[in-house]
């Protein structure tokens, strides 16, 4: 059997058809409609919420104890810098929540195969398991990018209308700050997809992996916030506060935020590096786990 059979093909050709098989797996069950419908609904809700939130910032209600501060802030929001920050925020509306859908999709792509016991036939067709997990990583990342495109399209339709309606400079939309936030948003969606998939490949159990993903996401965020607030009272060492970026959800915030995501937060690229670190380490662990483990 020295000649390569036509079916074997190169590593690239095999990977390409494995990705297409993964897309088919997602589209041939109800999960496809759940994820697409769920994401579209959440996008609409968070976009509306973003509108309401920024509208409220521009028109603080009277009778606040710190009304003067609120009015000063509203005035500052109408400066070019304020408008830019607002545009960047609206163009990434609700991203903190929306990336969770991507995480769960990543978890689903691998754990559903263990749950339905289809991993057996998947690995029988392709015994090179690293190629299978690689195709799943590519597929999850592609869907993450697709989710980003949907969310950005919705925000992109809403934000100029908001800016015009509020007589804010529309030029703010084209600023490098906004472009950076949106592009980093794409990176965030992709990395969170890898994060979820890697976690799923390591844990295998659908429920356990989904709960763990949410716990790491929300729990890590809560712990980081708590520590930051405690330290904030106790210490003036701002680099300590910056360590909150080690929580993946905070890293995600840091990389898309215009200005500082929280007091003492490191620059945006630190957040990008931290989240990329988590994504790559988990994806790698997922491949290693799949190669090593028995499928029975």
């Amino acid at each position, binding site marked *: 059997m020295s000649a390569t059979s036509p079916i074997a093909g190169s590593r690239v050709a095999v990977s390409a058809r494995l990705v297409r098989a993964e897309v088919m797996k997602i589209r041939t*069950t109800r999960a496809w409609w759940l994820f697409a419908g769920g994401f579209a609904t959440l996008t609409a809700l968070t976009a509306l919420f973003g509108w309401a939130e920024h509208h409220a910032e521009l028109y603080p209600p009277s009778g606040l104890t710190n009304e003067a501060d609120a009015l000063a802030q509203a005035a500052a929001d109408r400066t070019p810098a304020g408008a830019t920050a607002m545009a960047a925020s609206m163009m990434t509306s609700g991203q903190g929540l929306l990336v969770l859908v991507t995480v769960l999709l990543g978890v689903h792509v691998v754990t559903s195969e263990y749950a339905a016991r*289809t991993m057996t036939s998947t690995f029988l067709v392709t*015994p090179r398991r690293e190629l299978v997990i690689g195709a799943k990583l590519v597929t999850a990342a*592609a869907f993450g990018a*697709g989710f980003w495109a949907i969310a950005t399209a919705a925000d992109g339709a809403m934000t100029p209308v908001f800016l015009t309606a509020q007589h804010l400079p529309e030029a703010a939309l084209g600023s490098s700050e906004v*472009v950076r936030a949106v592009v980093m948003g794409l990176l965030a969606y992709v990395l969170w997809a890898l994060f979820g998939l890697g976690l799923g490949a390591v844990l295998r159990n659908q429920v356990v992996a989904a709960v763990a993903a949410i716990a790491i996401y929300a729990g890590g965020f809560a712990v980081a916030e708590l520590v930051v607030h405690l330290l904030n009272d106790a210490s003036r060492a701002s680099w300590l506060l910056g360590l909150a970026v080690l929580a993946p959800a905070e890293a995600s915030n840091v990389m898309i935020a215009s200005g500082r995501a929280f007091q003492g937060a490191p620059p945006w690229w630190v957040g990008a590096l931290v989240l990329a670190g988590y994504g790559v380490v988990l994806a790698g662990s997922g491949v290693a786990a799949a190669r090593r483990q028995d499928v029975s």
Partner: protein
Amino acid sequence: MVIAVAVLVVGGLLGWLLLRDRARPGRGEHYGAAPSGAEPQVPAELPVGAPIPEELRPLGRVEVSGLTKMYGGVTVVDDVSFIAEPGRVTGILGPNGAGKTTTLRMLLGLVIPSGGVARIGRSRYREIEGPVRTVGALLEASGAAEGRTGRDHLRVLCRAAGLPLIRADEVLDAVGLARAGGRQVHGYSLGMRQRLGVAAALLGDPQVLILDEPGNGLDPAGIRWTRDLLRALAASGRTVLVSSHQLAEIEQLADDLVVIATGRVVASGTLEAVIGAHAGLEEAFLELTAGRGEIR
């Protein structure tokens, strides 16, 4: 501007990825549901491919030597060796929990052996390029996702293996599931699931067939059909390896036998040789496995 282009590019790519299958024929066809409870009729003609030329038959020889599997400190498969010859049906017979399934899973690269090696032709399963063209396997009834249709289950496998999607319809026809193929596996009886599993094993018209308890859940007609199919596959020069704990079934089917109890081979050889001086297979089996595990 940059954002708009990026959104369009990513959205377009994803849309193309998702929609490219829609144009293909066969998708979304709805077949009339079979009356509930009725097992579908199987075509009279058995789905056996062209005979394997004499000179290629040695490539289908299955050789297991010294396979051992330990979980924790427990040895579930202990130094199992046997050969399944092309052109013959080899039966692995043993009580439940004897290690039959684990042995087959090691042979197929799904479970990593603690010791020993299993080869098909000259290669281990994981070294075979495009293995579905060489080896077809049935490990558990269907192994398909409940929410996917039988046809989509097979089409996913075709896609991953690089086979034309039409193969899915051909094997569905061959096992009598043509009408049920458009329904979700969720509604299949155990017998229909076994047929779907057989269909998956036949996808690549393989030279070697490995089936774990293929008779489970089948009605008498289904058992008869499966037996005729496996005999015909062996007669065409293919290698057929079947595990079972049903003595009567294996006695009518196998040319050669490997009797396993508590993880060890207790007898092997031709059916006649294993029966030897005993009155029949049942007496031989009971004596060989006496005191070794549970017999049902």
